[in-house]
């Protein structure tokens, strides 16, 4: 059975992630291998004007995937791309949102989504896009 494709303009259910603690960042650093001291050293973060170490951009960016999977488990990610435009200090919650921008049909449908992550300042922390395809077309 084939599910109907989403329509352009459809919004993903918005989801809040975090706030991430220093322990969360250390755990992610250990799992991912990204132990850039800026994410782990409060003194270094403060020395560059950040109130707290910034959350790894990839920790926030990867959190879009569960949202996409929960929204449409019949689709899989073919492309995931993002620009990390603003640091999000640890201790701050982030709102993840998305919207279907374009749907192409045919033998191999593709769904293009715009993705946004916004911190407390509401300025975009991540601007990205995802392309989803039906799992059966993989």
């Amino acid at each position, binding site marked *: 059975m084939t599910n109907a494709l989403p329509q352009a303009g459809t919004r993903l259910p918005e989801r809040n992630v975090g706030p991430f603690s220093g322990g969360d960042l250390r*755990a992610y650093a250990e799992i991912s291998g990204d132990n850039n*001291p*800026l994410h782990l050293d409060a003194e270094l973060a403060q020395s560059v004007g*950040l109130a707290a170490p910034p959350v790894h*951009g*990839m*920790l926030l960016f*990867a959190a879009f995937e569960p949202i996409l999977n929960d929204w449409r488990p019949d689709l899989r*990610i073919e492309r995931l791309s993002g620009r990390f435009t603003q640091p999000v200090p640890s201790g701050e919650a982030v709102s993840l949102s998305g919207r279907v921008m374009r749907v192409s049909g045919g033998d191999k449908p593709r769904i293009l989504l715009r993705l946004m992550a916004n911190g407390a300042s509401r300025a975009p922390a991540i601007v990205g896009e995802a392309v989803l395809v039906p799992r059966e077309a993989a």
Partner: protein
Amino acid sequence: MSETRLGPFCVRTEPTQIAAYRTAIGASGDDVPAAFPICWLGQAEIRTAVEAACAGRLPLHEGQTFDYARPLEVGTEYRLSLNLHEQAHPPRLAANAEITTVAGEICLRMETLLRLVVPAALELSA
């Protein structure tokens, strides 16, 4: 500007690491998360190569792209070839990785864009 080609390196979708990664990003299911291959840049020999290219500067992650030709499978070995492309103005390092099966079939192209700064020159806008 300089360009360095490295690899191929042997990488794996280790089930225990995949499970830990899923937990960290709040994911469930049985798939390899699309963003998981970023962890391979932390693998010792790959990380050493990237750190050498950073030459003492702090890398700030500016952008990331994953382009899949086919999904990865859990518990499988792959080959990762890396192309490090350094730009001078402003200093940036683009790490372009190509992940293939052991037989050489393309699975994924991954681009990691790093802004390189010296700590004293870090700015909030970086």
